[in-house]
């Protein structure tokens, strides 16, 4: 238990927590290779672990396979080789319901055909805990109202989900994930469709919630500033489909990032921001 708390309290130490053999990693990806049929290999011998409560930023250029990796963890895609363990159990051998009770997946954009209200939409996060013939109970709806309130969007509860702005929808998706009470949340580019203000808002929210509820999170992004902001562990997925994991200090090196993004980047301490900042130098 102390390791778990340790993992929550300090992001810095969490990446080393799982080297302590006493803790079963929440996610244990071992030697995963994946290729879409008829295409080049996307994931190349990907190996990493995520400790309970750990916040991980999965960084990489477009098309590197970030979403593919998340889909493999959810068992929505099956790797050609390699194994993924969720809390010590092979994910291929778990029922969908069991995976969903442990892992919530916030996908990039959910295309909702029908005009469900925010409340009716978010309560679907309870699905893994409901039998096929059981609709959500008042308790389930209470969880929804709680989550909406925590995210400051309770006033949206009777609005139509598909009519909300991108930022509002993202928050509702986060609410649905919270309602699912998972131990791990996978965020697939939660900020990609958002303006700058909303990006920061969602990032802060993810950070605070994971600290408060103790869930681990893996968040994909192509913005190298995000891991610095979150002070999370970093998984860097290169163009070659190989993944490196480490702390911000270890991974966020100029030469490493330049190779991955194929653009010149500089990382500097900015006193006014109180953090390091990743930026591109002037053109020419």
């Amino acid at each position, binding site marked *: 238990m102390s390791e778990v708390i340790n993992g929550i309290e300090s992001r810095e130490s969490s990446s080393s927590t799982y080297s302590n053999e006493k803790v079963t990693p929440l996610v244990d990806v071992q030697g995963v290779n994946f290729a879409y049929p008829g295409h080049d290999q996307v994931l190349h011998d990907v190996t990493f672990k995520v400790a309970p409560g750990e916040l991980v930023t999965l960084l990489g250029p477009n098309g590197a396979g970030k979403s593919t990796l998340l889909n493999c963890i*959810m068992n*929505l895609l099956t790797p050609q080789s390699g194994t993924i363990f969720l809390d010590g159990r092979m994910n291929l051998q778990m*029922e*969908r*319901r*069991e*995976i*969903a*009770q442990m892992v*919530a*997946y916030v*996908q990039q954009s*959910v*295309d*909702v*055909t*029908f*005009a*469900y*209200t925010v409340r*009716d939409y978010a309560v*679907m*996060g309870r*699905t*893994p805990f*409901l039998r*096929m*013939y*059981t*609709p*959500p109970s008042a308790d389930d709806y209470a969880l929804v109202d709680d989550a909406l309130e925590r995210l400051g969007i309770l006033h949206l509860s*009777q609005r*139509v989900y598909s*009519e909300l702005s991108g930022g509002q929808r993202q928050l509702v998706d986060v609410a649905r994930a919270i309602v*699912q009470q998972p131990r791990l949340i996978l965020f697939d580019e939660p900020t990609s469709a958002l303006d700058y203000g909303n990006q920061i808002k969602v990032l802060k929210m993810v950070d605070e919630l994971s600290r408060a509820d103790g869930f681990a999170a893996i968040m994909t992004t192509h913005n190298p500033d995000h891991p610095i902001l979150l002070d999370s562990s970093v998984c860097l997925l290169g163009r070659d489909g190989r993944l490196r994991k480490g702390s911000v200090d270890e991974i966020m090196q100029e030469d490493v990032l330049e190779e991955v993004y194929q653009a010149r980047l500089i990382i500097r301490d900015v006193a006014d921001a109180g953090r390091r900042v990743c930026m591109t130098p002037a053109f020419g």
Partner: protein
Amino acid sequence: MKSSIKDSNQRSLPLVLAVLAVATVCLAIAALCIGSYSIPVRDTLNILVSTVTGAAGDWAQMAETVVLQVRVPRVLAAILVGAALAVAGTSYQGIFRNPLVSPDLLGVSSGACIGAAFAILLQAGQVGIQAAAFVGGIAAVAMTISIPKIIKRESTIALVLSGVIVSGFCGSILGLLKYIADPESTLPEIVYWQMGSLAKADYGTLLYAGPIIIVGIIILLAMRWRVNVLSLGDQEAKALGVNLKFERGIVIVLSTLLTASAVSLAGTIGWIGLVLPHLARFLVGPNVARSMPVAFVMASGFMLIVDTLARFSGIEIPLSILTGLIGTPFFVVLLAKQRGML
């Protein structure tokens, strides 16, 4: 329009259902009284009560025969057919994530009709007709679902297009069967199936189709909330822990079973499976936990009205003609009113 959306989602479901149920019961009683041989409401009710109590009364023997032997089975068939089509339509629209999908559009109805026509040609009897209607319906759905996969465009538009293709194909086969059929005996029967009618509904056919419809409706009503989750799409549903193949399989098989059973009772009846789910969403919002029971009760009432009109006309107008004449303009009004909240 936004305010009406809010209202529909907050409208009390028990109240709406109670009002609709009372209306449907009134329509059922009216349907028992109205017809070429009209019977006073009091006599009709007394006749119904006497079947339970066994009490004799002063009504005409003719009235008793008409009510119990002709109109009760027809009323029951109308209720079952309406309910089956609406529940199937709601389920199809949910799992195919498309409010334009209906048993007719997916080709189930025409497939079932071909099956029935085959069985009629082979003089297979009631059980044979029903089984063949079911097989035809399932085959048509399978074709409709697989065409988008073959052309590698799995959008909802591709699905709708595929339904149009399959319906067209089924139309040709049906045409061929009609061409082969004996114009004296089997052809009129096939045409009867194609246009829809409850004129031949009796206790015998009810005994075959009724239990299947009732069981199918009960199971789909029980898992109706699940249709919401399935309507989010394959990836989302799986990520939320749904055993997709199993649950979607159940919904498709049951919906097809309901449609095929309805066809075996009444032939092809268009528009009900498309329009009534829309009307239900308009009344109580798109949450299937709320909309399916409402569609179910409303469709029963609507079928009663349509069938009574068909009988009352004196010439037994085929039901599809009436549902089309009433349903299509009504659908346009509905679409105009619910803009943006399909």
